[in-house]
């Protein structure tokens, strides 16, 4: 589904990704862990087309993403739930949600409406607040909206960046429940998360990132791999 080989990326002169290789199979949840500033978000941004790769390749379902714009990549089936959620302030909850439909311009209106209906049924709090401006929602609700926004589309691969950051424990539970649902629905998920234990419960495999490189790959169910991960990411 997702294959990254020897990926390099720069911000100006700083060489942030220094040869990242990783992959995610169909229906697999892959954790991406590492300390602050090692390049986890940059990996996601490079996949999504926000940051150009200076070398290496990213393939989604066999298609090379090099040189494609983020909207073209989205239409290939990539859904992004970014750090800080990035809800649009001048747009209502419903307008924010409906932007997720642009991923699949060929889908029929009826199917689109059905997808919106399912999203509002799944997130009743968003349905109640559908006419409010998106940024008047609480942090947890905004995170739900950011998740719902990619769920109404036709994503096959989701990139989710620190979805529980700064949220109350009850909402954290809810978010991991959603990620579990998405996994059962067969999506491939690349999950960046500081809450490593919770993430490992839902993940199949994981990678540890250090200073722009993947330094460890492991099986989420293996106690040995987990122990090595904790050594790598602990300060």
């Amino acid at each position, binding site marked *: 589904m997702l294959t990254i080989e020897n990926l390099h990326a720069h911000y100006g002169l700083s060489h942030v990704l220094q040869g990242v290789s990783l992959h995610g199979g169909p229906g697999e949840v892959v954790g991406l862990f590492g300390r602050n500033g090692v390049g986890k978000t940059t990996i996601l941004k490079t996949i999504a087309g926000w940051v150009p790769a200076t070398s290496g390749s990213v393939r989604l379902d066999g298609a090379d993403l090099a040189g494609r714009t983020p909207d073209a990549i989205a239409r290939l089936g990539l859904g992004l739930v970014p750090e800080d959620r990035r809800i649009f*302030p001048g747009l209502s909850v419903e307008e924010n949600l409906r932007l997720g439909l642009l991923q699949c311009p060929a889908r029929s209106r009826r199917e689109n409406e059905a997808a919106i209906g399912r999203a509002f049924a799944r997130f009743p709090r968003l349905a109640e607040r559908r006419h409010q401006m998106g940024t008047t929602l609480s942090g947890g609700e905004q995170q739900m909206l950011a998740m719902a*926004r990619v769920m109404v589309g036709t994503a096959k691969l989701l990139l989710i960046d620190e979805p529980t950051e700064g949220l109350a424990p009850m909402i954290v539970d809810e978010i991991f429940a959603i990620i579990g649902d998405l996994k059962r629905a067969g999506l491939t998920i690349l999950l960046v998360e500081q809450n490593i234990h919770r993430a490992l419960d839902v993940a199949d495999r994981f990678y540890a990132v250090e200073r722009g490189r993947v330094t460890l790959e492991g099986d989420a169910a293996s106690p040995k791999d987990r122990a090595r991960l904790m050594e790598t990411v602990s300060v």
Partner: protein
Amino acid sequence: MAETIDYLQFILAPQALNGLSLGVAVVLMALGLTIIFGLLDVINMAHGEFYAMGAFLALSLAGLGVGFWALLVLVPLLMIPIGWAAERWLIQRVFHSRDRHILTLLLTFGLGMILEDVLKLAYGPNTMRPETPIAGGTEILGMFLPNYRLFLIGFGLALIAAVWVVVFRTRLGAMVRAAAFDKDMASSLGVPVRRVYAGTFAFGVALAGLSGVLLAPIYSVFPTMGRDFILMAFTVVIVGGMGSIQGAVVAGLLLTQVQAISSLYISPVWSDPLVFGIMVLVLMVRPRGLFGRLGNA
């Protein structure tokens, strides 16, 4: 008492309506400018020349026998590919460089100078005055008003309302607002940002061209006709808030009223200083203008 009513009816109200007919055209210009700025962060210095281009296109097409009603559709339609090409081939060239604010400013300024000279070469420097497309006048409440001005007010207000509906009530508008606020995120949801940029620029240019068609019968047509008008449109955009649609409408109607009414009491020479004085005052109190930028809450 009777004198007061006479004054209102025969002096103040007609002047206000004259101001309004200019006001709607100014708002159409300012809308194009402010939407382009709100989305692309580009100050289109060539906007006044696109306005002149619209007027000249109308003049030429009218010479070929195209009627006024067809011009109202045809000229904006012809301006769309021109605006699209300007965005794609000129603006996009410098759009991703680090000094893009200054570069796009200089680029569109240069483009405006070229367009102005092209118009001079093609049509000569002299002033031309198209015939009034709608002749006659109507008496309303004892006031005699030229029909064309009444049409201009009605058509302009309807167009402003249509722009508002498109921007704030349609999916296309939501895409524009989303891209204006956060182009990367909008893009990752599937908003075709490049096409939205080019399309919005073209739309703004088409609005400028349409203002040219509408105002040509009132203010006559000459190659530098954009200069005076663009100053007013820029003032409106600055007072209303750069990138704000509400701001362009409110400030456009307000400032043209100030101009119209004040010219009853003071020499017209002073009406520009008055308008710019208001701009300075507004900026002292609210440096970002009256309303918030497109895409922001």
